[in-house]
């Protein structure tokens, strides 16, 4: 039996918010084990002074001492989970500084999270799974080329994608909106195989990722079922040809967003989520519908407009929709409104999520929304950098999965 991945918890408040049980459950479900790094009273005093962040809350002082014990190797761990109360400014500062400190001074994968009493184990599951994947499958994540014939299936919240790869090349692909999870998967697989001109029996290994990964993976007897944080980041650096050195991967999805810093293809710090659909691809879909264009036309339309002319704040999708309707009613052009919507989504992701990771260039945008030029342009403006959108960026999860699963091909 494999020993559990030891995840060190650095936190303030989950026991008093009634969600410690949820954290423990999420970790256990993916083969992890949560523990508090042991530190002595004298360590707390010394380490808190040495770290130099003069916080007032004793639990945060303890958290700082625990982080230092991990970095200095006085306590061993495989991964780190940093969690503090949502809306606590003092804890947010500590959370960010500790995440940065651990990332800079150790190789431990870190995920940080701000919780409320409504946080459930389901919300935390993908994050915990990514932590255990990085700890357990470091060798697999280091894979740089695809071999043999493999297939990757990405069962996402909005769309399902499949890719067939042969000898490091994409030879077949399929894409469609997700309706019935299994049916959508079967259809994109059939399309990808047809385009590749091969049969299912010729595929040597199959991988799945995305929200429906477990269901689809079980149905098609996948060799690798892996969460989308590690798979997408691997797919991104592979397709962007940035497998060595640092990179930041941004994936604005249909339901949530991911921001991942990567070093040599292996995720270091990542964040996932978003406060409202107003900061996701869903708001852009809605904008396209309201403007009477297909989502594929929203990008070119937005590039003809100037977002600064239309005030828009999609912190909440309802407020964003109000801004959109008001702007159109006041006579704003469709181009300007499209550009404002792209800017607003980029701004929400920038404010809510990119502050949780340290942006390292190059910045790679992936997922279906990376095909909306106005969104990529707006993100580039906010980050003051040129964003890379690799080829096949909408298939990133499927490609990452096909690449990684080639490590599972059995020798005849």
């Amino acid at each position, binding site marked *: 039996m494999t020993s559990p991945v030891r995840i060190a918890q650095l936190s303030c*408040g989950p026991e*008093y*918010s009634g969600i410690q049980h949820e954290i423990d459950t999420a970790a256990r479900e993916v083969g992890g084990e949560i523990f508090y790094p042991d530190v002595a*009273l004298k360590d707390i005093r010394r380490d808190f002074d040495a770290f130099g962040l003069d916080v007032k809350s004793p639990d945060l002082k303890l958290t700082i001492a625990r982080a230092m014990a991990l970095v200095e190797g006085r306590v061993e761990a495989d991964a780190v989970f940093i969690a503090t109360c949502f*809306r*606590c400014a003092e804890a947010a500062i500590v959370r960010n500084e500790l995440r940065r400190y651990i990332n800079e001074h150790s190789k431990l994968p870190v995920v940080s999270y701000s919780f409320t009493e409504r946080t459930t184990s389901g919300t935390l599951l993908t994050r915990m799974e990514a932590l255990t994947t990085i700890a357990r499958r470091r060798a697999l994540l280091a894979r740089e080329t695809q071999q043999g014939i493999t297939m990757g299936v990405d069962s996402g919240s909005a769309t399902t994608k499949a890719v067939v790869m042969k000898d490091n090349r994409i030879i077949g692909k399929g894409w469609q909106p997700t309706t019935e999870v299994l049916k959508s998967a079967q259809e994109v697989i059939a399309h990808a195989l047809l385009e590749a001109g091969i049969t299912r029996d010729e595929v040597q290994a199959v991988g799945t990722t995305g929200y429906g990964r477990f269901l689809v993976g079980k149905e098609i007897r996948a060799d690798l079922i892996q969460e989308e944080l590690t798979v997408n980041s691997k797919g991104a650096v592979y397709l962007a040809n940035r497998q060595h050195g640092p990179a930041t991967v941004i994936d604005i999805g249909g339901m949530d967003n991911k921001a991942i810093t990567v070093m040599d293809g292996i995720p270091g710090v990542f964040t996932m989520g978003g406060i409202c659909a107003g900061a996701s691809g869903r708001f852009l879909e809605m904008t396209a519908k309201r403007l009477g264009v297909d989502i594929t036309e929203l990008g070119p339309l937005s590039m003809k407009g100037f977002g600064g002319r239309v005030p828009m704040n999609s912190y909440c999708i309802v407020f964003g929709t109000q801004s959109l309707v008001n702007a159109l009613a006041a006579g704003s052009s469709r181009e300007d409104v499209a550009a404002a919507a792209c800017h607003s989504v980029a701004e929400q992701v920038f404010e809510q999520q990119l502050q949780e990771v340290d942006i390292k260039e190059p910045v790679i945008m992936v997922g279906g929304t990376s095909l909306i030029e106005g969104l990529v342009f707006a993100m580039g403006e906010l980050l003051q950098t040129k964003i890379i959108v690799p080829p096949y960026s909408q298939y990133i999860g499927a490609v990452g999965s096909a690449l990684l699963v080639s490590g599972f091909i059995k020798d005849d």
Partner: protein
Amino acid sequence: MAKVFIYPATSLILSDMVARFGHTPLSSATAIRERIQTAGLESPPLQITPEEPKKGLRWAAVEVPSGVRGRMSLYGPMIGDCEAAIIINDADLAFGCMGCARTNELVKFLIHQKEIPKLELNYPKNEEEGVRFVAAIKRFLTELGGTR
């Protein structure tokens, strides 16, 4: 005999002193003991469930972090019940430590609002201050009607 709220509420030394004078200490241990001895709850380690932060809305609004509200669901009722209070400021971590500074500010504020006998002291920094510190607590507890 009086119900005496102690701050820091986790101080075993303070809790013991209050009990030695025949009073009832209101402390973290009291509130946590009630929870962990309640059969049927499964929310380790403190048996605080997501319902507690909601109960904490009585003392702090919804925009206040859940950790503060969860803690207030423990301390709030005790502050409501207490007939006297002892507050030790800037206590050493070993003397007693309450994890969240924002909760601590609110707890002290609520105690200050109550018209009850209170003793507020700074934590002693040397032996001489330590002697005066213990004497002051002893005097306060005796004047509350306590007997050793």
